[in-house]
């Protein structure tokens, strides 16, 4: 009876189910296998969605990747290199004392909204930044301004540094003069930072009244930063749409661009947070390129005909010793012992991408100021044990922080690196207590000096030694927790010296000093990889991770 019945209605149901499955699961026959159609959008996956359409408000690398295609800065880095070259300014000069910077602007540069670029427009941007108030003055919303130009016309909080920016004048139509209060080696590099992308006068007018509302830590950014249509720059691409829902930014070729037109009609930047998912999306043909390729994926991708150009090395990974967080670390012998304990060569050999090398100092060897004569610390566990015993720290216990679920250009697989170091330290008798934080929490925790040992690194913003060692050792820094007034003074002096040769020599000397006092252990410099589909002519890859996608095109 029941068990032997015919199956008509059921068969129907089953058929419906099967149809649904087929409809959803069957192969896409029309799937593109190439991109020969020039109008096909080029899709690039980044690790996160952009934060704002106005790059001034952020310090986020993903946002800068977008903004470099849309906005241009006065100065730029050469394609594929780290030398500073003209951007919107064809030529530039500095005054003797280094406080007056004159920029001779390019002729015939148009903004996306039709405005023309002139010195007034440039100064309007600087004046706007200088005069910002309210929520804009939070370091969250003007990080780079504050680190390069100091504070604002009217600082609203004591925490904000004094302004270094004095004025911007336009003596001629295409000549802009920017005055700062004293020379610093952050210039001219600072003018190349993506945060200082020049927007059109019409844009500035439209956003003049836009305010950042909300409280510290809970800001609501104004609409122009969230919805395409208001902001206009001079770059090779215009921003067409920011689809929050899909975490995608659509860029269109700007046909009136002053330079060579972009190779793609449309370019889409899309967020895929997981590095494995990015690789799979590239392999599945959903995207045509992505950044931060895991070292382990480089070979398989290359074998499968994907292009994985390697960038030049311009970064440093280090293990910091926070001397206030653990007394033992204030003892130089302990710091040195730990340095001898870590097999950095193994990290370079097995975890970092090919082309990486052990770092001898807090400074990549590709940058002027690197010294061949710094004190080196060879891997020698026996020596490390002896030194620890000498220092009376045979039973040393150290908290060791590392970030989870993040890949940085200088640090692929933080956990693996941590594991190797931790096991090396354990081998010389140090007890390691692992502590993890999510990336966004890791930065404040390590910055405020809560971690005795931690992994961190730095990718250069521009070509000057100060951008590396000056970042850490120009004064007391809670990241390292030590005071060495001689070192700090020497650093300031070097940075303020407008003479290039003298300055480089001073930096070399500083690097040697730093490695003597050993505030941390430089681990490696390694080239971060970027991947592209076989049918793409990739752009020149930049050691500063500042690729100009206008150079890329379909094969």
């Amino acid at each position: 009876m029941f068990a032997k019945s015919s199956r008509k209605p059921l068969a129907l149901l089953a058929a419906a189910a099967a149809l649904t499955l087929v409809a959803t699961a069957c192969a896409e026959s029309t799937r593109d296998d190439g991109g020969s159609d020039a109008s096909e959008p080029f899709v690039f996956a980044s690790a996160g969605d952009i934060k704002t359409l106005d790059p001034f408000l952020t310090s986020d690398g993903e946002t800068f990747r977008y903004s470099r295609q849309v906005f241009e800065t006065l100065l730029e880095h050469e394609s594929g290199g780290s030398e500073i070259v003209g951007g919107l300014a064809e030529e530039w000069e500095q005054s003797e004392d280094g406080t007056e910077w004159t920029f001779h602007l390019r002729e015939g540069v148009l903004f996306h909204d039709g405005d023309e670029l002139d010195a007034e427009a440039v100064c309007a941007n600087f004046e706007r930044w200088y005069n910002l108030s309210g929520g804009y003055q939070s370091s969250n919303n003007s990080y780079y301004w504050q680190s390069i130009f100091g504070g604002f016309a009217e600082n609203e909080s004591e925490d904000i540094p004094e302004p270094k920016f004095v004025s911007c004048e336009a003596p001629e139509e295409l000549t802009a003069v920017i005055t700062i209060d004293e020379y610093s080696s952050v210039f001219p590099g600072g003018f190349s930072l993506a945060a200082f992308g020049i927007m059109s006068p019409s844009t500035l007018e439209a956003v003049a009244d836009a305010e950042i509302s909300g409280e510290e830590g809970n800001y609501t950014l104004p609409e122009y930063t969230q919805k395409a249509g208001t902001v206009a720059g001079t770059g090779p691409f215009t921003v067409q749409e920011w689809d929050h829902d899909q975490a995608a930014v659509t860029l269109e070729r700007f046909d009136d661009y002053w330079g060579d037109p972009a190779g793609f009609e449309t370019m889409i930047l899309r967020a895929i947070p997981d590095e494995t998912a990015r690789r799979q999306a590239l392999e599945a043909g959903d995207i045509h390129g992505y950044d931060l390729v895991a070292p382990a994926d480089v070979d398989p991708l290359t074998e499968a005909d994907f292009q994985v150009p390697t960038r030049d090395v311009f970064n440093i990974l280090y293990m910091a010793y926070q001397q206030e967080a653990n007394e033992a670390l204030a003892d130089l012998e302990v710091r040195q012992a730990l340095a001898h304990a870590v097999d950095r060569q193994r990290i370079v050999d097995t975890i970092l991408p090919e082309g990486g090398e052990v770092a001898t100092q807090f400074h990549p060897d590709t940058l002027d100021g690197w010294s061949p004569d710094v004190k080196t610390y060879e891997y020698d566990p026996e020596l490390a044990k002896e030194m620890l015993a000498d220092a009376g720290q045979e039973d040393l216990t150290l908290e060791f922080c590392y970030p989870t679920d993040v890949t940085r250009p200088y640090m692929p697989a933080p956990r693996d690196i941590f594991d190797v170091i931790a096991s090396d330290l354990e081998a010389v008798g140090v007890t390691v207590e692992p502590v993890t934080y999510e990336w966004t929490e890791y930065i404040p925790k390590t910055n405020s000096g809560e971690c005795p040992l931690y992994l961190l690194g730095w990718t250069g913003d521009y070509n000057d030694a100060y951008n590396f060692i000056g970042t850490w050792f120009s004064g007391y820094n809670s990241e390292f927790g030590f005071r060495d007034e001689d070192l700090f003074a020497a650093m300031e002096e070097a940075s303020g010296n407008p003479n290039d040769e003298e300055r480089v020599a001073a930096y070399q000397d500083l690097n040697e000093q730093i490695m003597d006092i050993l505030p941390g252990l430089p681990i490696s410099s390694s080239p971060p990889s970027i991947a592209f589909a076989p049918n793409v002519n990739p752009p020149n890859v930049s050691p500063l991770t500042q690729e100009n996608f206008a150079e890329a095109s379909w094969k």
Partner: protein
Amino acid sequence: MSSSTPLLAVDELSVVFGGHGSDEVRAVDGVSFTLEEGRVTGLVGESGCGKSVTSLALMGLLPDRGVRVGGSAVMQVPGGTADLLKLSQRRMRDLRGSQMAMIFQDPLSSLNPVVPIGRQVTEILRRHRGMRGSAAAKEAAELLDRVGIPDPERRLREYPHQLSGGMRQRALIAMAVACRPRVMIADEPTTALDVTIQAQILELLKNLVTEEGTALLMITHDLGVVAGLCDDINVLYAGRAVEKAPRAPLFAQPTHPYTVGLLGSIPRLDAPRGEPLTPIRGSINDNIAWTRGCAFAPRCDHYTMECLQGPPDLVAVGAAAGVEGGGGSTGAAAEHVHRCVNPVRGADTADRSAPESPAAVGEDEEAQG
């Protein structure tokens, strides 16, 4: 039993559960009886004796797997006769509801809780009589009216949980009689009902039998129901008929100790005050395989070693114990048969057995322990 051919002749019906050797259970073991037009045949016994399985086997409602059905059940159907046990499923579906119908014990669980009563009545009309729409609805209302449900139109729209117990059983009966079946099986139709309702339902069944000439197989453990309704009675124990007879001789002269015991379990008004009931001890589970002897022996006060020598045969009452030959006879010759080597003898049945029991109990320590 004068009529020529019976409407349904069941011969040596056996049902075995389990199949794969391990725990084979013989639920029904060689049961034979006949159903005739306008007569009520009773199957009596405790729960678990195989009554319900017999009815389900006849209806073809036993599960397919793990069940073996043997014997035959030849029924008069339009255009000849058919063995119900050998018909195809499809053919049985055609017969069920139209030629034979069944009424179940628990009217609440036997009605689909989420389908209105009306739908449950009209679906059978539609299936067997091809009636639809308003015609079916009208007929359904008439059926409900006929089984004594007031305000049938309203009831048709209601769900089973909105009806009282008696009403539900009436609705089930309405469904059973919807196509005027020739054979009707009622499986404990009154057990779940109040006493007053019981009587009404029995009355209703009785009327249907007399009016329609339906043959009714009444399955019950209630001897009161049997006495009031049945013409022929089969007493079943552990899957076999232990005694069968027309109503009068059975009640007057029960011979099998089990029948005697059943009768003795009923309180009687005419019994002397203070006299104890004489229940059968133990339960239906305390039995042995028929193949080893009389299954009732463990509970029987009269058993002897002879009872354990092997299966007793069904013999006519009065035949000497152990004499072969009466087995399986269903004809008119043996109106009163039993399956016992040590039958209870004598005329005044129930009263007689009474004094015997205490003695037996006294002797046998296990009886009440």
